[in-house]
């Protein structure tokens, strides 16, 4: 199937003449949507989660938006900006997608924002949380359905300071996202009276041993360690933190990635009592989240996790944004594709599983709902999430200057 598509697209240039004459014959109107995500590499699991959620959202809409049949074209950005740019070009130029989304990595997200702006094709980031994406690199063709690094971590920082935590060590990978998370946490934590006593950034992807960093953290005698690690790095930090016997003395806190459900097995069982901040958990009991949970479980036979919810909102925003743009344009896709992003950004997603979320019109960035979650032992003896608090969304960093 796909091979046939490749080969026909190889000769699309020559084929265009033929296609033009035959175009009038097409009865059904279709709109192509690109799902470009990190299906291989360290974020492969997250990308799969996003894809599952997309398919659910599409199914709920009967595969249609505003009279157009939706065709999803899936591509792998390999957790590499280079590959992402190449695949985005393919989606835009070979597959002629109207809009694309789903990305995970922040680096990929920023690269894609550049392509979207250049090619004037809408792009909706699903998981790429770099502040710059809706700051310095914002564009009328770019929107984001995830929180920004600063907003999440500033909110979490403020929360912990107010809870009486006076000193904290920040640990994270030494690359853009880690630095952004550190800055965000520090903003919120120190504004609310806390003090970051050690900023420990470890070489990204090359660190094999967190022992030196954990020892350094111990030296400070801080009240807690706040971290931003994901995937295999998260597994190793959590395991080593426990192995150094620090769980009692200096608890490890962070955002959802550090205690991601997908990592629990690899951690050799997650620590009961661990607390982290998130924008979704299947322990939420709002009407919208219950509905999403049931629908997801019916389709996949398991409970959704945060990355599923992120992917779901991403897909809903794209599909409903498309529908709105088509309806506003009298039943046809608008020529000017920035109108799609404008339509999307005007959506009010009051019944999103994550809570009542909406876009900030000045930079097309979603303003999220945030929850503090604790891992508890459920009645079945297995670990579960429990919402222990809700907290106000922090602020996106300024820097967007959209013309």
């Amino acid at each position, binding site marked *: 199937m796909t091979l046939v598509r490749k080969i026909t697209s190889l000769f699309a240039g020559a084929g265009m003449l033929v296609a033009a004459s035959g175009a009038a014959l097409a009865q059904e109107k279709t709109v192509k949507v690109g799902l470009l995500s990190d299906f291989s590499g360290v974020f492969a699991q997250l990308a799969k989660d996003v894809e599952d959620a997309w398919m659910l959202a599409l199914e709920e809409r009967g595969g249609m938006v505003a009279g157009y049949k939706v065709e999803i074209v899936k591509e792998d950005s390999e957790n590499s900006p280079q590959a992402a740019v190449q695949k985005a070009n393919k989606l835009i130029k070979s597959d002629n997608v109207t809009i694309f989304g789903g990305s995970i990595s922040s680096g990929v997200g920023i690269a894609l924002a550049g392509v979207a702006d250049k090619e004037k094709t809408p792009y909706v980031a699903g998981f790429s949380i770099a502040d710059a994406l809706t700051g310095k690199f914002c564009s009328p063709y770019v929107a984001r359905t995830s929180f920004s690094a600063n907003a999440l971590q500033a909110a979490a920082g403020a929360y912990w300071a107010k809870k009486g935590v006076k000193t904290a060590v920040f640990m994270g990978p030494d690359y853009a996202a880690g630095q952004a998370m550190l800055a965000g946490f520090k903003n919120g934590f120190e504004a609310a009276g806390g003090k970051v006593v050690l900023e420990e*950034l470890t070489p990204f992807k090359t660190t094999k041993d967190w022992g030196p960093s954990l*020892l350094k953290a111990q030296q400070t005698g801080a009240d807690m360690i706040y971290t931003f690690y994901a*995937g*295999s790095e998260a*597994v*190793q930090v959590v*395991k080593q933190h426990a192995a*150094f016997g620090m769980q009692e003395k200096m608890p490890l806190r962070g955002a959802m990635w550090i205690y991601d459900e997908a990592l629990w*097995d690899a951690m050799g069982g997650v620590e009961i009592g661990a607390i982290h901040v998130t924008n979704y958990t299947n322990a939420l009991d709002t009407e919208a989240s219950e509905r999403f949970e049931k629908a997801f479980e019916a389709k996949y036979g398991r409970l959704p996790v945060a990355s599923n919810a992120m992917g779901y909102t991403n897909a809903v925003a794209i599909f409903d944004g498309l529908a709105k743009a088509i309806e506003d344009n009298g039943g046809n896709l608008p020529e000017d594709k920035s109108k799609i992003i404008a339509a999307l950004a005007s959506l009010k997603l009051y019944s999103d599983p994550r809570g009542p979320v909406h876009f900030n019109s000045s930079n097309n960035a979603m303003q999220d709902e945030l929850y503090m979650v604790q891992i508890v032992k459920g009645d079945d003896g297995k670990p579960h999430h429990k919402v222990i608090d809700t907290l106000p969304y922090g602020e996106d960093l300024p820097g967007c200057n959209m013309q």
Partner: protein
Amino acid sequence: MTFFLFNLLNGLQLSMLIFLMAIGLTVIFGLMDILNLAHGAFYMAGAYFGYVVFQATGSFWIALAIAPLLPLVLGFLLQYFVLQPLIDRGRSAHLDMALLTFGLLFFTIGLIDLVFFETLGLTFMSIDKPAGLGSYVNIGTFYPSYRLFIIAVGLLVALIVWLLLERTVVGAVVRAGVDDREMVRAMGVNVYVVFASVFALGCGLAGLAGVIAGAELSINITMGVQILIPTLVVVVLGGLGSVKGCFFGSLIVGMTETLSQAYVPALALFATYLILAAMLVFRPQGFFGRTPKSV
């Protein structure tokens, strides 16, 4: 002061893990002139197979005992049936074998990705530490007992390798071969079996390192490449083919990585490479390498 001592322990732990990898690589190079870049693949094979055995039996110790056998056997087959025949057919051992095993590393990574992730849907795996080693001991501060175990295994392997090489007939053959490859042929030993066995043992040790690391770190697709680079650095620092150099090279790399991370984090990314580059510029044969024979 204790901070420094515990950092030394951490450094020693990392050194020993790297040593388990590097010792095989350097002896293989010394004896057969093969730079086995697929060594990282054997490390992965040990870790992934260890995970499978662990899942099946629930025992760390059984995994530790059985899993290294897979890379051991694969290593023997690879050397005996693929690499050696190619060398005999006139392929330059030095360059072609490095390239070939490099391809093999890519192949293994792809294969593992296909089987474990694309087919089985497993991304992050880990082997549970055995009871007794899963916790920490109080030696001034809490220190993970498993790290002490790694240090012990590393030192033990170093001792065994040393005894094997210095005190056994096979060891004498291998030592002679590292010094002068032609001499082994002249000794009337079945060189190919010796070669393949040494190759296999090296791969088995890499697999052992994989299982051990699988319980301390996490088992994932990038682990092989991640460990390969410091291992290569060790082998070059110590001098290609030098066992003593390998041991001290491991200490240098492990300590550099640990101490730079503890004291000068800004340099952590560079430190090892700086040492490597400086050494190659000023002493290309390594700290314990023989000075290249004249001409």
